[in-house]
């Protein structure tokens, strides 16, 4: 199965996890052949669809493609049996920003927030996630191919960031967890992203064993991620995950793709 993996920086954990999986049991993964394409941050916004190819509109993005795919500066969609989209600006942070001003019936009471109907939350968040690069790219690919497309969101941030850290934005993780709302927020996240992707792709949720408090990633899956991915030390990166996280993802991705083949 030829799998085209497209994403932003979160693709790094998938690459580390892939290498670790193959090293641990080469025979188990012999039928899967991933090719990685990506660009940091929102770099994947700078591509276009042309004659069945996804083509970078910027030179630096093309260089990223070449480096990650071992030589290809564009993606020929017909070359793959399935697509795996990673991250691409879909994260629980959007709901947490909404949660700072709004709540829905079923969450804890807070007179400072506007209370809305759960159906509104579902429709609003589906609309919001529908405007992300993840969904846009799924739409773009689906307009050309009928092969399976699966997607995963950016991982929840590592649990140790919950209490805040100098220089890091407070997205309200701790407030949501302390209020007892985090698990419902995590569920609303999965529901709305699934709905936003539904016409084009299938969401692979973050593996349950990696999730903590509904909206965080257990610290073990973030350990050494900053050193492995960017070469930095000191554990300053709570957003990116390590090889163990990637290893937990791959069986779910393969299963989701095989179901649709």
């Amino acid at each position, binding site marked *: 199965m030829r799998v085209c993996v497209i994403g932003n920086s979160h693709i790094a954990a998938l690459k580390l996890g892939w290498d670790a999986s193959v090293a641990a049991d080469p025979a188990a993964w012999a039928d899967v052949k991933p090719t990685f394409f990506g660009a940091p941050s929102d770099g994947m916004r700078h591509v276009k669809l042309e004659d069945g190819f996804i083509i970078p509109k910027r030179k630096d993005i093309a260089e990223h493609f070449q480096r990650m795919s071992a030589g290809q500066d564009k993606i020929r969609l017909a070359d793959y049996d399935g697509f795996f989209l990673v991250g691409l600006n879909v994260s629980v942070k959007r709901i947490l920003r*909404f949660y700072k*001003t*709004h709540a829905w*019936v*079923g969450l804890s*009471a807070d*007179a*400072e927030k*506007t*209370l*809305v*109907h759960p*159906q*509104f939350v579902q*429709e*609003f968040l589906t*609309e*919001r996630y529908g405007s992300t690069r993840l969904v846009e790219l799924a739409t773009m690919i689906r307009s050309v191919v009928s092969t399976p497309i699966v997607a995963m969101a950016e991982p929840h941030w590592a649990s140790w960031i919950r209490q805040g850290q100098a220089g890091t934005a407070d997205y309200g993780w701790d407030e949501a967890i302390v209020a007892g709302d985090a698990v419902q927020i995590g569920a609303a996240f999965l529901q709305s992203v699934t709905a936003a992707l539904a016409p084009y792709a299938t969401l692979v949720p973050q593996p349950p064993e990696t999730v903590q408090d509904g909206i965080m990633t257990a610290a073990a899956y973030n350990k050494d991620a900053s050193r492995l991915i960017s070469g930095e030390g000191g554990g300053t990166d709570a957003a990116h995950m390590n090889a163990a996280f990637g290893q937990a993802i791959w069986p779910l991705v393969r299963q989701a793709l095989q179901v649709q083949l």
Partner: protein
Amino acid sequence: MIEHQNEPGVVSRRVRKDAGLPAVGVLGGDAVWSVAACLRSVGLKIADVEPAPKQISETLAARFQFGFASARCGALGDLRQILQLVQAATGVRQPKHWICAAPDGSFMDATRPGIDPSGFASKAELVVYRDTHLAAVLKLLQGVTTLVLPLSKVMGLVDAADGWVYPAQAAGTKLARGCKLEPTVYAADTMVDDFATLYAALITVNPALTIRLVVADPAQDLAAMAGQGLLRAVAAHCAARFSAVVYDPVLDMLLTRLSLPEPDARVVALVQKLMAGGDLLDAVAVAKPEVAAMEDAEMGIPAPSDAPREKRDRAQRRAERANGKAGKAGGEKAGGEKAVGENTGAKKSGGGSRVMCEDELLEAFS
């Protein structure tokens, strides 16, 4: 901080008076007729105590009735429903049969149908939802300095069980057992009485409040337009009787024109002026001599010197201002009712102060 009174079993929510609200609030509005939207379109900031999230699309906001008024309270449009909302928000009175069932069996609020497309699985959830909405309305009443009340209806659907008036319900809605809604046309006296009760309730909650009545609805048939005539009479009567009430039929006309596609920029400017408490005459004072001069020229009459007329106008305006001050100082009856003969036009000082400055400037150079 004040405690909002809840019904038994309802989660208690504390309401904080919000000093940060914009000065103007609008109670009532929907997709067909939203005075709040009209006023926003001329650049006015309108309070919104149940706002949509910032990133929402217009389509979705309209589907869930965000932004049509300062709270998601439905169209309202008649004094009885506005009074009921204020009474419910202040804990004075609650309807008996406000919980109804949607066709799918979920529970909905009959006092504001259509606010959300679907209901709640349990009555307890709906009670929390309504209680929070009423707390937001109370916050609005306490926090604004001007409350605009759009009026467009002279009839309502009355529940004989407790006299509560409900808006029309969606097809398939199952009303509560014992609730039978009968259409009732309000008599003028009834509307005035309702307003007197409403006025007392609002001034109790917010003694500094100014209430601005608006009678307009551009999407009306002939019968409804006849009703608007009655509403205008009631509004004018209430404005004459109560000190903190303003009604200007010119604003009605301007708001109607404002709702048309691509409204005239002059309409925008006039609405801004009136909502700021200005006097419409300020805008036409310059235009009048020009028209008169054109008419005179057409008839071959030589243009006279304007000096005597300007002098007479200034003297007249000074006399009117002096009368206005006297009326403010001693013209109010007990209970906020106005003395007979008091000027019921725009009472705020913004426009008048500017005119006074202009007069003094002209006199200084005369």
